[in-house]
């Protein structure tokens, strides 16, 4: 699935991934291929994006939102410095 992570100041990540772990407002959850459409706010925590066979890519965030629609994941974050 296609994942894009955006902050107000730049694009943090844009690419293919198999798993995205996000700190949702009602608990951490994982987005896999074919996840149902969802919009959720995110709490302070870590967003982790992994691709099979590769090191996961992580971003510490202070706050954010995630939207999943038709295998496209958009994560909007305010990153932790």
């Amino acid at each position: 699935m296609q994942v894009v992570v955006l902050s107000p100041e730049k694009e943090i990540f844009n690419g293919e991934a198999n798993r995205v772990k996000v700190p949702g407002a009602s608990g951490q959850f994982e987005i896999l291929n074919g996840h149902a459409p969802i919009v959720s706010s995110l709490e302070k925590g870590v967003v982790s994006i992994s691709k099979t066979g590769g090191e996961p890519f992580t971003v510490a965030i202070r706050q954010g939102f995630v939207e999943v629609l038709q295998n496209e994941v958009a994560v909007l974050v305010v990153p932790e410095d």
Partner: protein
Amino acid sequence: MANLKEVRERIKSVISTQQITKAMKMVSAAKLRRAQEGIVRFRPYATKLQAMMQNIIANMEGDSASELGQVRDVQKAFIVVVTSNKGLCGAFNTNIIKEAIKLVEGRYAEQRASGNLYMMFIGKKGYDYFKKHYADIRLMDDYVGILEKINFDEVVRIPEFLMDSFKDKDLDEAVVVYGEFKNAAVQFARAEQFLPVPKPKKVEDEEQKRSFKADYIFEPSKEKLLQTLIPTILKNQFYKYLLDTSASEHGARMTAMENATENANEMLKELKISYNKARQEAITRELSEIVSGAKALEEG
């Protein structure tokens, strides 16, 4: 007719001024490019956020009103004026200041008279002007220097402060006056209402319809999501005001310096003509002196 030496001096000074305006134009062009990049980088984030809000509203039945959208009787008003720190950018700051004066003397004249008008300044030019001419208004200068380096984390403290004050009823209406950026040559001075936020409207377009049909899960609830989204959008809006003003400033300065350079060219052309005339005259005078001198000798 001006004498040769005088004209030569003028030419020299015009040339050196022109070098300065040329250099300033180039510096502004570089800064403008950087400021524009900032806007471009910010755009996808802002667009997506807006789309998310539309999504939620479209899926919501009933009221999407928020605490920050409460319209009250305006007792206390707040104006944020965003200008540049430096001058030499044409009428850019003047236009923004004019727009702010319109508010002070028109829409908020009543609040001003009762001492309930507050103004906050970002950028020195606006602050200097109002400090001098409107000493009766409460002016805040805590964030005057923030434009030097626009940093998201720092900038959002201002909208946070405004939203908190609004919730505590320390202000009933807030307006931001800034320089909207269209392109390098076109900037507008604009006054935009920041608080209370207008109720988000549903928009209809193709891209949106596609996502409206999706059966979304909303976490936590739509209402709660909206309550976190609206402040986030407001913070972004405010950030955008500063990005815009900064880009506009550099655009305005670039245009102003370009004009100045051109004017200097015109002046140089005219000065060169009068220099040549003066030189020609001197030569003619000398020649006629020599000729008449020789003639006098011959006759004598």
